[in-house]
């Protein structure tokens, strides 16, 4: 048996053990003081809410396979002939209506999201660790100012933002999208909280006593323990930039720099005005293609949210 299959077997075994452990740990509802009827009613409500939330996604998946006439003419939650998925998919990569291609917008979105998201994560990790584990004068005030930024909606500052960006030549520049995307106050708040709760001061003290420099303590001791929180911030930052509409709408007039959100907004406008039969299927399939990477990213990174990393480091 090869090494890869041995480790796969171990992973399968591990997952099986975890499933069995979860089943063993489950407590009958009666022990929570709940009646079965109450549980059934609550579960039904949750299922209905889940259906309500997932219904648009199901609609998009199903209707991405239809022609425009079938999108409007057939039952929304079932397929209809002809199956146009691949034809529509090919059209995504054509310059429809002279507004630019979906593929170009998609690549722009990937660029802005990854750059902004990674930059935001780096800043949040460094700032969060600094605020959590260093004592310096004014730290509370600085932190409050950063968090106050959360209270200001971007629509409120759209006009001054445009004027400021114009002064520093960030209009119609990729840096106009990337740089502000790296500033995520909620990410810094999350990292500070995560460090305070998950990295005991004694660990840092022990590393200082062991002769490590502050940089080495951060890279070798703190950062590996911050991975679950770091992944959460990365995910939120990437998703936030991926879905951002207002900022690129303000700073971009060049179609070639649009992310998917603004590009499809443009298609949506044209579709509404001109009734172009080519655009509605593209809008539906484009929306589906846009959300697939985010779902994949959440699924890929969920293992970092598992607990137990700090097990054994500090006595309870």
């Amino acid at each position, binding site marked *: 048996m090869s090494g890869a299959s041995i480790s796969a077997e171990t992973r399968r075994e591990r997952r099986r053990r975890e499933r069995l452990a979860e089943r063993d740990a489950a407590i009958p509802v009666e022990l929570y003081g709940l009646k079965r009827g109450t549980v059934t009613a609550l579960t039904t409500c949750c299922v209905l809410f889940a259906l309500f939330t997932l219904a648009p996604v199901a609609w998009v998946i199903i209707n991405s396979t239809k022609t425009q006439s079938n999108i409007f003419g057939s039952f929304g939650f079932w397929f209809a002939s002809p199956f146009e998925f691949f034809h529509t998919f090919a059209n995504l990569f054509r310059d429809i209506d002279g507004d630019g291609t979906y593929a170009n917008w998609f690549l722009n979105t990937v660029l802005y999201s990854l750059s902004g998201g990674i930059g935001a994560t780096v800043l949040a990790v460094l700032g969060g660790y600094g605020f959590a584990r260093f004592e310096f004068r004014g730290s509370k005030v600085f932190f409050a100012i950063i968090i106050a930024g959360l209270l200001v909606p971007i629509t409120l500052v759209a006009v001054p933002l445009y004027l400021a960006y114009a002064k520093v030549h960030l209009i119609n520049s990729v840096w106009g999208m990337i740089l502000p995307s790296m500033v995520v106050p909620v990410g810094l708040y999350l990292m500070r909280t995560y460090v305070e709760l998950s990295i005991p001061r*004694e660990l840092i003290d022990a590393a*200082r*006593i*062991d002769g490590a420099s502050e940089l*080495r303590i951060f890279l070798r001791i703190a950062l590996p323990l911050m991975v679950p929180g770091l992944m959460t911030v990365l995910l939120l930052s990437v998703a936030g930039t991926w879905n951002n509409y207002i900022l690129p709408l303000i700073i971009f007039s060049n179609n070639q720099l649009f992310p998917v959100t603004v590009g499809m907004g443009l298609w949506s406008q044209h579709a509404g005005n001109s009734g172009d039969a080519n655009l509605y299927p593209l809008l539906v399939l484009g929306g589906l293609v846009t959300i697939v990477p985010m779902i994949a990213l959440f699924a890929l990174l969920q293992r970092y949210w598992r607990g*137990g990393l700090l097990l054994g480091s*500090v006595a309870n």
Partner: protein
Amino acid sequence: MSAISMEKLSKVYSSGVSALAGLDLEVRDGEFVVLVGPSGCGKTTTLRMVAGLESITSGTVRFGDLVVNDVSPRQRDVAMVFQNYALYPHLTVAENIGFALINKKVPKPDRERRVRSAAAALGLIDLLGRKPGQLSGGQRQRVAMGRAIVREPSVFLMDEPLSNLDAKLRVRMRSEVLRVHKAIGAATLYVTHDQVEAMTMGDRVAVLHDGELQQYATPRELYDRPANLFVAEFIGSPEMNLYEATVTDDELLLGSQRLSLGPARTLLAPYRGRTVIAGIRPEHLELVGGAGAGQAGMATLVADVRVVEELGDEAHVFFAIDATAAGASMLVAAAGDAEAGMLAGATHNGVAQINSRSAVRRGQQVTFRVDTGRMHFFDPDTSVAVPQMPG
């Protein structure tokens, strides 16, 4: 020259709270000194200032003749064992132990040899590949020790390293810690709130209370000649019985009972006609029989037995006399006997340590012979001990 010396060491926080007030203490080369006291007395603060993990408000800390107030922890050549172990959870046992050597840029072969040597000394050879999460409490504590000893430091600091272990393991690890200390030979400052640990482990013990040093002496000296009321109560288990007493020409009045002072009358001469606080260790009360069993000329106390705790080789008899208890040991319910606390009149103000073969029952009235030559006396205003007779 002392390995560690603290001169008028103080720590005052911005809120005005004084954690430590002018501590003068020195630890000789190879000595094992214990800092003991209740929670909040300043012992951990002292340790952290010696380690460089806490800033110093005033005073100095010296290692040898070098003032280290402004020297960073990594440059002080100290090793520390933390109360919560503080092991790096994502590193193996070997990596935990060797982390400090990597920081010192020790060559790999030398590093591996020293890690294996430290691990062997602590019985950790078979655990080198494991991570802290896969170890028991005692094993983690030994890894924390190994991480400290591998550095061959000149100063060893320990912050209540045994407090998270169960009672049996704690007793076993005490001797382990002392064995390691003897092998290393480094000056050691050990912090604990457990006076039994302090008495059994320290070459000298410093008792702290509210940020002030109460007494710094050998365990025997602390037990036999406590400097003040706090030390007298804190050291010894069960704790010392303390009563308000009035001194007459040659007797001590405890409530309605009289104790013949004997030789002790000389040292209490300045307190004639006044109140002192009299202390009697539980083992200096000898059970002579029921009420009225005492003989003429014998210093005795008649007491009502409230609770008897059988401990196998000895028994603790919790009793009440009509004297006023002094110090913190006021009228309290018997330890470990919750039921006694619920019964009206079940409170006690004294405890005696007797041979378990003596048949004593709750509710009995008994007579104790008091060894007045071993009694302790304290000034009620200053709490300072009245100097005892030599020998």
